């Protein structure tokens, strides 16, 4: 990743207010094409709120979100997904009554076109597209090590496996920017290492990743740049080395000082 890579996601003056609570205040940051960027901060810093605003789950009170040069902050969630934004969820949102494979097949939605009429008539095009979706989904499951579970109900997966399934499903849309909401939370140490390796591998293949994560070892290990939030404000941004030694960050995490 070069320092001069193009900006993929640009967030300007973003704010979110829930009644009297300022969840995010006047936030500016950018994600460059091809980088792994992490957002960290103490609990309640506004990380998941920020993710929800970028993906369109909640509307910002002010500010702009630009993806590949196009303002997306007014678009509904599904249109942002069609413009190349994929995400996973901190509190899993697996389609539990489908098989593991079907979950990933749903992820291929934006990469396929057959509509209701073609589905009902089972046109040759719809059948060949269905095969392509199936093959692509099986390949993704193989990549994430879930091949064996393909035909099992998604509800039967462990927590860690469900997290991987969400990543597979998000990848099925072939996103330009992948948002990962705590991909290593609640999984074993080894599983967290595997997730880190996976993210790095995806990034090597050209995927830009923005992640929220509490596992500092993982964040410091894989991120090219880190954004630190506290009480909805940016308190630091930069390389892992710079952020680690930033006095404001240490204060926020150790609670030595009040930043308000």
């Amino acid at each position, binding site marked *: 990743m070069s320092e001069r890579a193009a900006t993929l996601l640009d967030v300007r003056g973003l704010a979110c207010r829930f009644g009297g609570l300022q969840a995010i205040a006047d936030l500016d940051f950018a994600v460059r094409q091809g980088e792994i960027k992490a957002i960290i901060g103490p609990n309640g810093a506004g990380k998941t709120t920020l993710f929800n605003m970028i993906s369109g789950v909640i509307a910002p009170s002010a500010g702009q979100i630009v993806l590949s040069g196009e303002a997306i902050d007014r678009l509904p969630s599904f249109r942002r997904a069609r413009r190349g934004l994929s995400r996973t969820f901190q509190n899993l949102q697996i389609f539990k009554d489908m098989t593991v494979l079907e979950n990933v097949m*749903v992820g291929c939605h934006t990469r396929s076109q057959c509509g*209701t009429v073609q589905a009902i008539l089972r046109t040759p095009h719809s059948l060949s597209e269905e095969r392509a979706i*199936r093959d692509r989904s099986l390949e993704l499951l193989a990549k994430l090590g879930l091949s064996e579970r393909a035909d099992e109900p998604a509800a039967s997966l462990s927590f860690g496996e469900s997290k991987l399934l969400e990543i597979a499903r998000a990848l099925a849309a072939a996103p330009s920017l992948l948002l990962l909401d705590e991909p290593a939370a609640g999984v074993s140490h080894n599983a967290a290492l595997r997730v880190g390796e996976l993210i790095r591998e995806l990034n090597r293949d050209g995927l830009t990743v923005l992640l929220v994560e509490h596992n500092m070892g993982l964040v410091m290990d894989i991120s090219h740049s880190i954004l630190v939030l506290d009480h909805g404000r940016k308190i630091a941004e930069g390389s892992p080395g710079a952020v680690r030694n930033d006095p404001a960050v240490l204060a926020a995490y150790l609670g030595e000082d009040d930043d308000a």
Partner: protein
Amino acid sequence: MAKPSDAVDPIAGPINTAARDERGRALMGGRSLLFIFWLALLAIPLVGLNDYLVSLGTSFLINLILIAGLNVLIGYCGQISLGHAGFYGLGAYAAGILSAKLGLNPWLGLPVACLVSAIAALVIGIPALRLKGHYLAMATLGFNAILAVLFDQLVSWTGGPNGLLGVKPLAFGSFALSSQARIFPIVWLCAGLVMFALLNLIQSRVGRAIRAIATSQIAADSLGIDAFRYKLIVFVLTAGMAGLAGSLYVESNLYASPESFGFSSSILLVAMVALGGWGRYGGAILGALIYTGAPELLRTFQDAQLLIFGAGMIAVLLFFPGGLAGAGDSIACLWQRYRP
């Protein structure tokens, strides 16, 4: 951002073709099973000893269209319609009035009934489905109530409480399909087309999107699925099917009266979806069997009919939450637990 044509791009690793073929066969299995079942149904008018038994077969198929459509809407898409009997009635009166009052060719009634019910669903669905929550249930509830009044009060068109008389039978030239045995093949064909259409739909990209919306709309949104659009498509499609069922009803009975299309019928249809097993394809068949057969079997009990029917329904849903179609799973589960 890559183009949609990238959908077929390989990502990594070899594909397990054996597993894929096996899955393909499993899907085909469902389709051929349905085909055999459907051919077998054609025997009803041949072995039916009298018009009464054949008319039960016709009612079963008409009810199946209604319940199977409603099952896709409720069980797969997660949207509740409490006005399905209204769409059914709208189709019946549209087709009936067309031939009885306007003197048009009765065959026109079938597509017109579909269209009228589908358009009504479109008008209700566009505002109601934009909102999150159970607004569709409320809107359809109101719609059914309004229709019930109209069927009853527009006497010059619908015949009011006395019912719509003078409906002309479907005919091939001078060969009128005026008996139950003659109309049966038409109903059989229409119901078959509906059942295959629904099976194809739920086993497709659209079907997965629909199920995804019902399970987690937030996740479906994040994957680029336009929830409003798919909910509307399913609602309009299944309302159109209910309209078709209505036109078949009026053409097989040559009569329609308001009490068949009231709010209580809508509730009963939803109950049949639950009883058969929602979100299970075979559930609709069981639901339609009960909906058609139970009133006939319980006829000897007279006033206790509803009581027995209601108690039976509670018992089934208590012991088999997945409905009768899920009973196999429930029993297998119990067997696993208490196996000696």
